[in-house]
């Protein structure tokens, strides 16, 4: 029972990080109806940003988090401006291929610069508490706290602010909204900046929880978050969070039952099964095809 509860804590920690990344996938899909395959690699690069920042100047945790979030947001906006905006009106397949290509460019550039995985310096000295047979570290509380805080802030932003309203409007009808005077390009840039900033926060939190970072993290971790977004119903922000915690739990408990090499197999089989029975994810609404 203790073991089970301990694993549950690990699942919540992993799920929180997945949720932050999955939100970036889901927001972009909601607004642009496009799978931003490069987002996982943006997340990976953000943890390298954090690594470089700490090499140059050892700043406290919160400062590192904010600086990395800002740098990643700028990267996200640049990708949108250079690679995706020219394809705004192109066939959707072109946009997916471009995103896949951008992701590989980022991943292989990082791999060429840093061929080996890097050991992250400690950002934060955790305190551990023993509580009724369970071990909880202050780092875990911090990760879950920051993630949940950012998710609530995003939910507030989408529901209550003018930009959030514009984002929801563009998601509904991209033809009429510009006629109403909404600056579509600006709103899309804000969406990318927010998504990438959340990915950046996830990069810092991931690197402090699992302090070995490598260029393949975008595929190993980032794409899991993508699976989470699809399971929850891509385009639906709350679905992304639900999918992420579900996936975190599945991954952690798979490893307690099966050898750890089965983890990817179970995760992607789960994705396939969910797509067969609920093609639009758990909370997604089916798209009506107009003739």
């Amino acid at each position, binding site marked *: 029972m203790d073991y089970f509860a301990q694993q549950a804590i690990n699942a919540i920690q992993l799920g929180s990080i997945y949720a932050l990344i999955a939100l970036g996938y889901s927001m972009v899909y909601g607004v642009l109806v496009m799978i931003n395959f490069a987002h996982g690699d943006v997340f990976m690069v953000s943890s390298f940003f954090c690594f470089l920042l700490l090499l140059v100047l050892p700043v406290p945790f919160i400062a590192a988090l904010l600086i990395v979030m800002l740098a990643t947001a700028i990267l996200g906006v640049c990708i949108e401006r250079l*690679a995706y905006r*020219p394809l705004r009106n192109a066939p959707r*397949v*072109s946009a997916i291929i471009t995103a*896949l*290509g951008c*992701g590989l*460019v980022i991943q292989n550039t990082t791999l060429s610069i840093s061929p080996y995985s890097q050991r992250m310096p400690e950002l934060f000295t955790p305190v551990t508490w023993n509580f009724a047979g369970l071990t909880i570290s202050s780092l875990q509380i911090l990760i879950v706290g920051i993630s949940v805080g950012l998710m609530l802030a995003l939910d507030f932003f989408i529901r209550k602010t003018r930009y959030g309203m514009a984002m929801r409007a563009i998601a509904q009808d991209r033809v009429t909204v510009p006629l109403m005077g909404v600056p579509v390009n600006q709103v899309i840039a804000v969406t990318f900046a927010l998504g990438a900033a959340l990915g950046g926060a996830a990069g810092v939190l991931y690197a402090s929880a699992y302090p070995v970072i490598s260029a393949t993290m975008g595929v190993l971790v980032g794409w899991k978050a993508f699976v989470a977004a699809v399971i929850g119903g891509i385009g639906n922000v709350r679905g992304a969070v639900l999918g992420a915690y579900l996936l975190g739990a599945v991954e952690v408990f798979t490893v307690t039952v099966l050898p750890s090499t089965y983890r990817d197999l179970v995760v992607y089989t789960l994705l396939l099964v969910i*797509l067969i029975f609920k093609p639009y994810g758990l909370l997604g609404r089916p798209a009506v*095809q107009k003739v």
Partner: protein
Amino acid sequence: MTRWLQHPPPRGVLLALLAAGLAACFAIEQFGLVDDYVRFVLITFGINIILCVSLNLVNGWMGEFSVGHAGFMALGAYLSACVSVKWLSWGDPLWMFPLAVIGGGLMAGAVGFLLGLLSFKTRGDYLAIITLAFLMIVKSGIENIPYVGGPRGFLGIDNHTTLLWTAVWTVLTLWTIRNLVYSRFGRGIVAVREDEIAANAMGVDTRKAKLTAFVVSSFFGGVAGALFAHQLQFINPSVFDIVKSTEILVMVYLGGVGSLAGSILGATAFTFLSQALQPLGTWRMVILPLILVLLMIFRPRGIMGMREFSWFVPQREFPKKEDKK
């Protein structure tokens, strides 16, 4: 352009050219006319043409988006390696190797059939996700089968992929896919790309068209994988990852969607580029996706997109001289 390029030559001339090409491959193989490196590159070129044309059937002519082609390659490679190393290793390579290649193709085709069934319900982005999940499942599935070596890879495959076999399979792939897309039934596959609902309303059996396209495409993907395994003599699950799929996508979108000549052109350019960029190491895999991104922005249909070199078009597509009057 000169007149003879705009109109296909008589059938006999094409067949004679084909026979001459195959004879040249046989001669090169028999008398060792080229060194090992050139031979390796030529075989890679043939395998790349097979991969590119077969993925083009789904991504180009049918207009869907699959990123799982490396998964079919993996299935073909592993099954054919099992046949030639474990099950029929006593056999004479003359009949055993074609059997292994066909077996690999059939295995991939059978899985392609299942993936085709899934394409009935989902299209576009979600189908792309399904093919991605398929690729990941194949890769991590193979890693968990100790019988084929797991993550360490499959060792000790003999080198059976000769230039002649590669040429024969390349011609067979081009011939099958040309005849498929120019047949009455194959026009249904193109109709699915243009508008699935309208095609259905006009009486095209879109389900059958999709299934056929997926099965044929994955069969030849598996054949290419089998040839690939017997060329490299060592296969490893991490070879067949998303990077491999992206390489095939680069070929398809560089050469041109929905075009046989484009597929050959794309495979040629890609084979040449990746050999020329070899000294750059991992930076090679920065440049290739970058080319893909630039292509999508500036020329989304590729060099020969939706056009065809007249020699690949069947004679009956051209009006006869009397009709023109």
